[in-house]
């Protein structure tokens, strides 16, 4: 089975960020960059499919050079090869443009299933996976929490969390799947795996090689602008109550009644 997994490198969600004084974005220096959490689950899903059906797991990213580190993590987990696509024209590219570039790359590869994280934790956009499915003209299943592929590898049944329940969906492969975190438990890269990953190739591709016009991409992306990035409004300082339970309960009731007005 030919499995493609899309991987994005994002700032570590546990670390603080510094917003640039001009509000144009965050300070890039000193950032701890990691693999997008949901893409670890996507990579794990790909590796398990390979364990079952054989084949290859190819990691794919559309980001600058430093994202190679993120791809190397997936290679250390056990993926076979990785491709990184970049062009200066992609700075500030919108999500739909990124999806177009991914689609153009995937079209050059044999692909039976394309797996993405359901969103990336830097911007929570959740756009690329479904847009990618449209550009590839493949069926999609987003935010899947369970995946059962039939023995021939030609179709699957997935579970999606929807409001108030679980949708059980049959889908034909090839398809694009975006994954929710409870789909699986991603394996750690093993130490031998990390050392072996050094010997695996990360191919670098340009837009030109994919037949894409950088100018077109810039123009399409220009329609979406980040006007400014600001710190969230500070909440007014609250007050604390200590002491016995009865006093606490009285304070809570008063708060719910008089301030929050929900009682």
């Amino acid at each position: 089975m030919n499995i493609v997994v899309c991987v994005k490198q994002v700032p570590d969600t546990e670390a603080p960020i510094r917003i640039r004084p001009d509000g144009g974005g965050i300070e890039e220096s000193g950032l701890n960059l990691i693999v997008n959490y949901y893409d670890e689950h996507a990579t794990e899903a790909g590796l398990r499919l390979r364990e079952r059906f054989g084949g290859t797991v190819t990691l794919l990213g559309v980001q600058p050079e430093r994202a190679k580190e993120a791809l190397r993590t997936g290679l250390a987990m056990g993926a076979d090869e990785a491709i990184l696509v970049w062009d200066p024209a992609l700075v500030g590219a919108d999500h739909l443009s990124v999806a177009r570039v991914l689609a153009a790359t995937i079209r050059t590869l044999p692909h039976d299933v394309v797996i993405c994280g359901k969103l990336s934790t830097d911007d929570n956009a959740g756009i690329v996976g479904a847009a990618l499915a449209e550009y590839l003209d493949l069926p999609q299943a987003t935010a899947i929490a369970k995946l059962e592929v039939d023995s021939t590898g030609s179709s699957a049944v997935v579970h999606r969390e929807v409001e108030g329940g679980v949708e059980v969906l049959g889908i034909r492969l090839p398809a694009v799947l975006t994954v929710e975190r409870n789909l699986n438990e991603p394996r750690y890269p093993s130490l031998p795996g990390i050392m072996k990953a050094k010997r695996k190739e990360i191919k670098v591709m340009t837009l030109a090689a994919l037949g894409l016009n950088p100018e077109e991409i810039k123009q399409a992306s220009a329609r979406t602008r980040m006007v400014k990035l600001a710190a969230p409004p500070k909440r007014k300082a609250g007050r604390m109550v200590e002491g016995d339970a009865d006093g606490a309960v009285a304070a809570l009731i008063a708060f719910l009644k008089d301030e929050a007005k929900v009682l």
Partner: protein
Amino acid sequence: MDFQLTDEHRLIQATAREFATKDILPRAAALDQAGTFPAEIIQRAAALGFLGISVPEQYGGAGIDAIGNVIIQEELARASAGVQTIVTVNNALVCDPILRFGTDLQRQGYLPALVSGKSLGCYCLTEPSSGSDAMSLQSTARLDGESWILNGTKSFVTSGVEADICIVYARTGTEPGARGISAFIVEKRFPGISVGKVEKKLGIKCSSTAEIALTDCRVPRGNVLGNLNQGGRIALATLDGGRIGIAAQAIGIARAALEESLAYAAARRQFGQPIAEFQAIQWSLADMATRIDAARLLTYRAAYVRQQGVRYTREAAMAKLLASETAMWAAHKGVQIHGGYGYIQDYPVERYFRDAKITEIYEGTSEVQRLVIARQVLEAALGSAR
């Protein structure tokens, strides 16, 4: 001189940190309270390659360099010094001497099991009457046909309870001191080896510390490690590497104390502001950060010299000395910064305080490290004719 970690080292660090944070840290306090061996964690660590970090690929290891090992040990110790003790002993005091001094047969026979977690290693050098004066050990080994018969008592053996492969030092020659000692690979299943008293300790409680009794223990002839009467040299060479692992452990503990203190100082408010705003606290945090960085760089330097293939005794002793004293000092500061809460077991700093102490003692006390360093420094300055 490049002070940056390579991409590979960063990936190793991230992996070790994630494993330590997700798999070890949530259980660290409970393991310390119960004092139980973390069998599940050790098995998972083994599956990821943590028990044979620098063992070459051909024996199932990861073949990671000395700096990579330091990085890993620090991350594991940051989560639990007890768990990390088990790991570093297996790596530095058992896999390493077998790798360096063992025959092909011994390497093939023991390394894959030690790396995979099928076996666990322990190191039997210290005895009730010989600690710092290790080379005065009294356990004996005499040849009887195709076997060596070992007699004696070994004390303070880390993982003594759970280990099944033991590096045991015993006196084979008539010469006193280091020159009459040989090293043996002894399996627990050999007749005549048993676990004696299991110690209750101040810290690193989930790592077992036990007496090992040898009563006419029969060891096959092929299980001499290295050459006969070479044991003293093997012990000292092994300790050089072990000390780097302990230095890394100490840095992990110290860093844990610092990180917890930073978080606490930011959250704890007194006199209308976070205590992190007060100069006294800031100076403590600054000193902790500075000394930890210094200890870490000294430890990386020792690992680097080892990687060059030259003698690193002085560098390892310096690293172990500075790092262990930093850990104890930083843990002490950490408790103080936490105030009353630092004394309460709900907060982890009291555990760091108890765990840190051992780093100043085992694998050569700070006093011994100073002797080692002094000898090296004087010899370098004055030559051997002093």
